[in-house]
């Protein structure tokens, strides 16, 4: 019988915990974290009064007209933006995913340059999604003028960056064995993606894409900026003016759209199951 070994991870875990706590403390201080403020009677009363203000929702014909028009526009912009973002994201994600790297196996020839390339793509994607939408919008307004085109492009660029990143992360997290077998059998990366990763990851990819579409519907910054209006902008306005009734109506529309997105997502996932 061997003497019982000690867990070799124990020390690392304990020190990790300590470091995490040490880091968390200043962060909590900086963000002035104080949940007790939530439950102060005065604050609750103010909030309650404000929330009562949400009822009844605004249903005047004029406002509903605005909402319907904004909804249509928003849906169109979000759909077009996501479609372009998808076009941008797919090749970038394939290029960025380490699991799909042929040179990873072994490691084989050209490992270093490929890794450098991946780092490059990573940086590019970081730039796409890291530069605020507003800046992209300003840029495209210069080229295309005010109007949906600039908004769609700004959305496409930032969301393209976000989709790329998340696609890559999803692909990276799914089971590698199937791809490894394919890549070691001489297939190309695109084909390995289709035969080895997608069967497992497709559902999650689709569900994230639909979620992004839903975010695009809510996005207000870009659309308002380029004069495309949209639901998000109406919402911002209603909230800034603390107009509860209007906000409630728009919130209901948001909720409906979220439910719609959920239904679409569920349907697509079922198709892929």
């Amino acid at each position, binding site marked *: 019988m061997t003497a019982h070994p000690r867990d070799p991870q124990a020390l690392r875990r304990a020190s990790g915990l300590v470091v995490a706590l040490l880091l968390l403390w200043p962060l909590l201080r900086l963000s002035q974290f104080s949940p007790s403020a939530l439950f102060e009677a005065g604050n609750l009363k103010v909030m309650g009064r404000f929330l009562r203000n949400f009822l009844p929702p605004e249903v005047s014909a004029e406002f509903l007209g605005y909402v319907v028009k904004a909804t249509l526009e928003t849906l169109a912009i979000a759909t077009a933006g996501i479609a372009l973002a998808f076009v941008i994201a797919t090749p970038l994600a394939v290029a960025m995913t380490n699991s799909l790297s042929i040179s990873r196996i072994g490691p084989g020839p050209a490992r270093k340059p490929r890794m450098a390339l991946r780092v490059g793509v990573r940086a590019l994607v970081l730039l796409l999604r890291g530069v605020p939408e507003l800046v992209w919008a300003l840029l495209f307004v210069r080229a295309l003028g*005010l109007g949906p085109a600039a908004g769609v492009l700004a959305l496409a660029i930032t969301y393209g960056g976000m989709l790329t990143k998340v696609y890559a992360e999803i692909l990276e997290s799914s089971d590698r064995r199937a791809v490894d077998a394919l890549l070691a059998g001489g297939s190309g990366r695109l084909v390995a993606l289709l035969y080895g990763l997608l069967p497992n990851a497709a559902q999650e990819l689709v569900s994230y894409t639909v979620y992004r579409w839903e975010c695009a519907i809510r996005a207000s910054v870009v659309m308002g*900026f380029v*004069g495309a209006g949209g639901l998000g902008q109406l919402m911002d306005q209603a909230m800034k003016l603390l107009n509860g009734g209007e906000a409630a109506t728009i919130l209901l529309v948001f909720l409906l759209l979220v439910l719609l997105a959920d239904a679409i997502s569920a349907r697509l996932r079922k198709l892929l199951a």
Partner: protein
Amino acid sequence: QPVLKVSAIPDEAPTELQRKFAPLGKYLEKETGMKVEFVPVTDYAAVVESLATGKIDMAWLGGFTYVQSKIRTNGATIPIVQRQEDAAFTSKFITADKTIKSLADLKGRTFTFGSPSSTSGHLMPRHFLLQAGIDPDKDFKTVAYSGAHDATVAFVQAGRADAGVLNASVWDKLVEQKKVDTDKVRVFAVTPPYYDYNWTVRGGLDPALRKKLTEAFLRLDPSNPEQREIMALQRTSKFITTRPENYSGIEAAARGAGLIK
């Protein structure tokens, strides 16, 4: 048919701006024979930027945004007309707090401006605050930017900020429309007058068209029942011509406040 693209700084809700512009747009269509298209945006910078790059032809600008557009185009944009009232515009400091009686009481309180690009909601109040010895970046507890004049009122009325500042014309409108509870919110200080809003056309716009537009504005007459509505919506009784030099005071104030580098 050629199109005249028009926009306005979003110092009020874009829907409101659109409503205000509709009859004026029809009038200008008739006067110029062009199709007039109004593009509402939600960001001051977008208007300045599009005017500077010729993506729109004419815009309703604040004094400060005009100065910005002038700087960005090296003086190419041309202000053509302004409302009579804009020649002596003021901003009003408001509060819902009984203990605030003068600007000096603001130290250590929370305060909200309108948009950072706003003349009457930010630049000039800041300028006069500085003159009164209050540095907003140091002396206030928190500074928020509500984004629009009517939002500032909402902020103050809901108690989210101890005090705020907005342009006099919007305040009067809100009071008139009973959109503000004057029992709670009151004006406790007013700025000295300054030049503000104007209609500016982009550089390179056909001078003949510019002339036509200027004249169209100047011809507006409240005694004409059709044009009365336009004037009422623009909240003025008369448009007057304006010149770039009118805004050198604003430019100086902006430089002094560090808003133009």
